[in-house]
């Protein structure tokens, strides 16, 4: 696995309490990460859309109608594949049940401990990079594990999806029409039993 330098890793901290936010920022910066902050869902969404970071630390209650869970759901819908960790004082069953559906890379209960914060971040980043390198698995290896065979063309498109390429970029690269690419993507999703890009990446990471 190619080791990323921490100074190349951008982390967005979404936390409405500015004291806690500052503490998290300093703890992460002391480890060499590049840290960006957002104090409300609006700021967070703008940042995520404009310059997707490598990891997001997401508070759930943001003193706003929109919660951290909503932000996570928005990213899933828009296929913004950025791993994120919930950092929250909500540990009740109802919240845990709700967050489970959003497939977070981790869950840190407040009050956090510095060591635990850093290890959870490191694990999430390591898993994310493993997910990307797993795309280098060969088609033969993947096909062995699936009930339905994936074609060479579908595999090529899968690799492009995994790299985060848009449909338009894939059309251009493969010299195919939009509808054809969409058709292939639908087949890929069916064969891998997923419904979105983020699920696809998770699935590939687990194969």
């Amino acid at each position, binding site marked *: 696995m190619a080791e990323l330098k921490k100074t190349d890793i951008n982390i967005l901290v979404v936390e409405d309490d500015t004291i806690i936010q500052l503490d*998290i920022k300093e703890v992460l910066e002391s480890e060499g990460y590049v840290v960006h902050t957002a104090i409300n869902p609006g700021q967070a969404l703008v940042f995520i859309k404009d310059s997707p970071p490598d990891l997001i630390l997401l508070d759930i*209650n943001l003193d706003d109608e929109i919660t951290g869970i909503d932000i996570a759901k928005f990213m899933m819908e828009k296929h913004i594949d950025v791993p994120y960790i919930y950092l929250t*004082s909500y*540990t009740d069953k109802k919240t845990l049940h709700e967050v489970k559906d959003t497939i977070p890379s981790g869950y840190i209960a407040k*009050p956090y*401990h510095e060591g*635990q914060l850093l290890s959870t971040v490191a694990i999430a980043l390591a898993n994310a990079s493993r997910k990307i390198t797993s795309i280098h698995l060969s088609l033969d290896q993947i096909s062995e594990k699936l009930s339905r065979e994936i074609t060479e063309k579908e595999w090529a498109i899968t690799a492009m999806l995994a790299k985060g390429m848009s449909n338009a970029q894939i059309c251009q690269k493969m010299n195919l029409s939009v509808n054809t690419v969409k058709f292939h993507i639908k087949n890929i999703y069916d064969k891998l039993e997923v419904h979105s890009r983020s699920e696809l990446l998770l699935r590939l990471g687990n194969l």
Partner: protein
Amino acid sequence: MQEIHHRVKNNLQLVSSLLSLQSRSVEDEAATRALVEGQSRVQSMALIHKNLYNDNAASGLEVKDYVVQLTQQLLQTYGINPENVDLELDVDPICLDVSTLVPLALIINELITNALKYAFEQHEGGAIHLSLKPTAEQHLMLRVKDNGKGFDQLEASDGFGTKLIKALALKLDATVNYFNDNGAVVEICVKNYKLSQ
């Protein structure tokens, strides 16, 4: 109720963050240490609250689980490689009420911190033994022993940790006994404690 629990934890987080921020902004080593120790005390209380509200109706915690988590947290706080310290925990299965657990947790926090800080001074091969068991008289006996250099003088020092332990012991109607036995030993016999339902 859930909302109150949430606020308690958020406020503990805020206090912890304030101490953590300040510990990084002071230059004096003694001041830094004092703030880190302050944060560690808040964290040991926070650990109780974190565990407590996971189960809805709980008024107390299994003390063994708590002590395991607390000692791991302390090793992390003071940057000690767990491989360098042989930590032996011998805790009976007892569920203690929060009113007992908070002062007891703060005492354990002080004793383990002391052992880590003074007993070994970076040397490898340190061992800490902690036991917590009911006695024949139905008291609760906490015993923390290390294999370090022992107390310089058996008359308890006037350090802040000692003062804190004395005050917390008062709350628990506990006797505190310091002695040397191939290292420092502290025995705390708690007479006033409340089990959790």
